């Protein structure tokens, strides 16, 4: 069964791609079926693990053996991976079903379904890996699928550029991950998780000299692994690809850029908790980058107008939450937030997709509004998603997000206090931008000029049904799973997460428990007033703070800075090397130069062969006299 979970999506992908002749309907049903079966099996695996402690490592076959490097293809089922398998396959199955409706007008449906299934396979390879190299395979594999799916509408120039950007920024992250893997191999001589984790405590004092300085090896490993995680999970500095990635079809955004692939970075940090626990420096780095990202992305989300980009920045921000949870040592809460986030963010994205579908491919929220009566189901589902995202009491986001803030506070370090304060502030921003999106989309006046309000329509059942399932998850997942994931005496995690000093979630000050729910509840009327009732206040604020507003609208100018620092100079250097280096230097002084010199010399030499006796006699005379002079001098 463990094998089936992994390989059914692959089978679905291959059959769907090459079975174009069998018809689009077949391809859609087949791929949905494969992933759905995998999803059902994943529940069974999770259940077996939970109740019967049925975990293990299933070998597929040997991959690479070179000297002391031995790497296998294998399936490792443990508490951590079984949760990930469940999240990945179930969200994937719902997105597959949803895509039947969403992509109904697209001529390349089989290709789309095939890519989605391929993605599912790669992601599963990533999470069930028992070594770093297979993880790297999955890591690049999901990057590839993301590339293919972002660029799915290949006729759009922007989609192609976004796809390349995603792949290359991810490659920068992968570069970090690869170096992390090299250091691990150098220190531990193996890439197998269990063997490494068993040895970590013996190497805490090992130093490596690196660029002239001496650094702790464990810290270096963690930092480089984290660079990989930053790339994949769109953390600050390497986040630029995620908003652009919204050029892909919406189901892709829901599956890859919200629920699964972008959480791979969080998964990596949690999986490597036995290493991270030994490096306080790296932990703090993770926490700080997480905090910056959470705040940065939320601030940018406030002023964006593209419905998908707002949700993308929101994803970025929530990933920041997960990282700072992991950074303060709350790996289990990070996983819990990952788990609940998968539901409500997929719900929001698919809901947004439903809205976009109703408006016939309109994504600008300033061109929407007032349609809640026309698309009531979508509105209610989006409402649930928004409430869950903002952390409204007793919905899933509430349990996980508050737990992060509380844990950071209980940690008692200065990073922890900053993190919890920023967490609360970001929660407020989250509420504002989420409600802004919600109100502007569904309420107020109808602003779309290209299609009339009568023509907007509710999405078909095949799109609404998966949303309902996700909505159920978004409401109840937090409540039902909180004891299992976070309970003070839960033994669920076993060996899969290491805590050097475990902090229990107890003795939390009352004000801390109350503050976030209160703030986010207050945010609802505030945003309703600001965005629907009286827009003049906001315009006033905007006009008096134009530089700040531009700063936010232009996403802190990060893209422009990167263009300026990296992309343009690299292009210029490339041309310089080619024209000046290869053509003007090497070729000029090398082959072309030599052949020119030879030509020149031979042209001169030709003149000696004039054919006149007296010329030759003259040369002979000079030669003879030179020889005689030489002999006399000696």
């Amino acid at each position, binding site marked *: 069964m463990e094998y089936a979970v992994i390989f059914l999506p692959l089978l679905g992908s291959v059959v769907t791609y090459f079975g174009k002749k069998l018809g689009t309907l077949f391809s859609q049903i087949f791929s949905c079926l494969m992933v759905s079966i995998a999803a059902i099996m994943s529940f069974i695996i999770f259940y077996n693990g939970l109740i019967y402690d049925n975990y293990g490592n299933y070998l597929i076959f040997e991959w690479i053996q070179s000297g002391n490097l031995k790497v296998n293809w294998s399936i490792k089922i443990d508490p951590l991976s079984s949760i990930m398998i469940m999240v990945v396959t179930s969200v994937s199955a719902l997105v597959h079903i949803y895509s039947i409706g969403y992509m109904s007008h697209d001529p390349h449906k089989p290709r789309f379904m095939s890519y989605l299934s391929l993605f599912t396979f790669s992601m599963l390879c990533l999470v069930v890996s028992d070594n770093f190299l297979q993880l790297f395979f999955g890591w690049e594999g999901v990057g590839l699928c993301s590339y293919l799916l972002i660029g799915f509408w290949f006729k759009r120039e922007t989609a192609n550029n976004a796809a390349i950007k995603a792949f290359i920024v991810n490659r920068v992250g992968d*570069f970090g991950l690869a170096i992390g893997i090299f250091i691990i191999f150098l220190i531990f001589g193996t890439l197998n998780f269990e063997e490494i984790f068993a040895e970590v405590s013996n190497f805490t004092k090992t130093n490596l000299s690196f660029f002239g300085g001496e650094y702790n090896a464990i810290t270096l490993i963690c930092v480089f692994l984290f660079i990989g995680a930053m790339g994949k999970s769109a953390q600050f500095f390497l986040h630029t690809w995620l908003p652009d990635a919204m050029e892909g079809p919406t189901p892709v955004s829901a599956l890859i850029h919200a629920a699964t692939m972008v959480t791979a970075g969080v998964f990596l940090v949690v999986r490597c908790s036995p290493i991270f626990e030994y490096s306080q420096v790296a932990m703090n780095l993770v926490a700080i980058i997480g905090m910056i990202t959470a705040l940065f992305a939320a601030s940018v989300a406030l002023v964006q107008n593209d419905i998908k980009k707002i949700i993308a920045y929101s994803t970025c921000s929530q990933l920041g939450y997960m990282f700072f949870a992991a950074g303060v040592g709350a790996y289990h809460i990070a996983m819990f937030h990952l788990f609940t986030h998968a539901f409500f963010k997929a719900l929001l994205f698919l809901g947004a997709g439903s809205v976009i579908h109703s408006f016939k491919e309109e994504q600008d929220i300033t061109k929407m509004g007032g349609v809640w009566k026309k698309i009531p189901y979508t509105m209610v589902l989006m409402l649930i998603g928004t409430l869950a995202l903002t952390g409204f009491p007793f919905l899933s986001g509430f349990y996980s997000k508050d737990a992060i803030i509380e844990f950071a506070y209980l940690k008692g370090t200065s990073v922890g206090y900053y993190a919890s304060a920023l967490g609360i502030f970001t929660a407020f921003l989250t509420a504002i931008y989420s409600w802004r999106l919600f109100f502007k989309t569904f309420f107020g006046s109808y602003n779309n000029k290209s299609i009339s309000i009568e023509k907007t329509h509710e999405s078909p059942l095949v799109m609404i049904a998966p949303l309902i399932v996700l909505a159920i998850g978004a409401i109840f997942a937090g409540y039902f799973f909180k004891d299992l994931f976070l309970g003070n005496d839960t033994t669920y995690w076993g060996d899969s997460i290491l805590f050097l000093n475990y902090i229990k979630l107890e003795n939390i000050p009352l004000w801390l428990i109350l503050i976030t729910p209160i703030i986010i509840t207050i945010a609802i009327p505030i945003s309703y007033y600001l965005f629907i009732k009286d827009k003049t206040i906001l315009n006033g604020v905007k006009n008096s703070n134009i530089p700040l507003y531009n700063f936010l609208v232009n996403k802190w100018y990060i893209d422009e800075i990167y263009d300026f620092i990296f992309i343009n100079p690299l292009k210029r250097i490339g041309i310089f090397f080619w024209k000046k280096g290869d053509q003007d230097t090497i070729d000029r002084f090398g082959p072309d130069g030599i052949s020119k010199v030879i030509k020149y010399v031979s042209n001169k030499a030709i003149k000696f062969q004039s054919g006149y006796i007296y010329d030759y006699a003259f040369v002979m005379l000079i030669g003879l006299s030179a020889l005689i002079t030489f002999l006399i001098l000696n």
Partner: protein
Amino acid sequence: MNFPILSTIIFLPFLGAAFIFLSNQKNENKSAIYISLFTSFANLFLTFFLWYSFDKSLTGFQFIEEKNWISGLIKFKLGIDGISILFIILTAFITPICIISCINSVKKRLDEFLIAILILETFILGVFCSLDLIIFYLFFEAGLIPMFLIIGIWGGPRKIYSAYKFFLFTLLGSVLMLAAIIFIYWSMGTTDYTEIYKLKIPQNYQYLLWLAFFSSFAVKTPMWPVHTWLPDAHVEAPTAGSVILAAILLKMAGYGFLRFSLGMFPIASEYFTPLIFTLSIIAIIYTSLVALMQEDMKKLIAYSSVAHMGFVTLGIFTFNKQGIEGSIFQMISHGIISAALFLCVGVLYDRTSSRMIKTFGGIVNYLPNFSLIFIIFVLGALGLPGTTGFIGEFLVLLGAFKINYLVAILASTGVVLCAAYMLWMAKRVVFGKTNNSIISKLKDINYLEGSVLILLCLVSLVFGFYPEPLLNTMDVSVNGIIENHQNESVVNLIYKN
């Protein structure tokens, strides 16, 4: 072993070429095609048989053949080990693919073209089999001639310039190698590789001799800064020529480094490691940046070849298991993937007579099957896990990291750049809008082209997921190289103290 299988493998293509030459009366191409296909496939099966009967657990050379050629002076000595056999298989595998690919694309003098390719195969196989320096030198240099003719006769508009550039560059290095071989003969009394390997060349001679061999191998690899002949040669060469050049001819130099530089001059090899590392790093980064800005697809792939060969030279001189195995693997992998990429460009060139990136765009609409295959090879070239490209690069970098962090990290940036130029090219060629009316009239690949490309694709994927057969074959021989190097380093230490 009584049956001289190595000689048979080497001279079978030559025999085929002779047949074509003799049977060619009425300028009939058909018989030429059949003969060349028959001989090259027969050779492929022979090499598979060779692989099957090869004993992977033995160190040293197998299937040794020895005959006196010029008595007392040159022995015709052949033999293979776990490294050379892989290159022999690669050569025998790529040749029939070249022949199939040129059937439709070479319009004039097809029979003579086939003769050139078969003779080239003979020479290249000879390089990988020979155990005598003079024999090696003869094969190594003789390979130039058919390649020179292929570029010069069947090439593009600037064929003469490119052919001479190719010839001058490669010959320049070779002269020094010849001098070094003559010197070895006078000082050691033999040119038999196995003898020299046992006798050990004195340390003070090693440095200069190493440099002489290096000058020849560096040009052929090609390493920066003597790489500029390669893009020109590729651009002007016909498709089959480019394929052979990229897939096999470049590998002769990497093989030469492994077999002769490391084997005969271990001390000098270690001494010059920093030089090799520096040149490799420059090659990887410099040529990647140049590749980024190319407008001609063949030139782009040619520059990427230089970058990929940078990984090879880097890996060879790490002197550890992962590095050397990685670089051998990288050579095989590059042989398959670059061959396939050149074939892909050839497919487009046959249809449009253009190799410029800007001619194309949106071909996925009109050539969907071709686009799929092309994208797979682009991904293979940028080292996506699951293709052979990844395993080679990863092992090389892993090996290099053990020796020198900085070198490995700098080389790793090449991987990022490689993704950039490859994907950018793919984007401009395969995706995007079609702004050229010719594109919409193109036909997708036919069965012949398709089957060749799919075969290469499968090879790349199978060995990407299951590289064990290749790694296993080279395992013992690579251990031999490393042991030799370690023993010599110990000698070196004693010598110094």
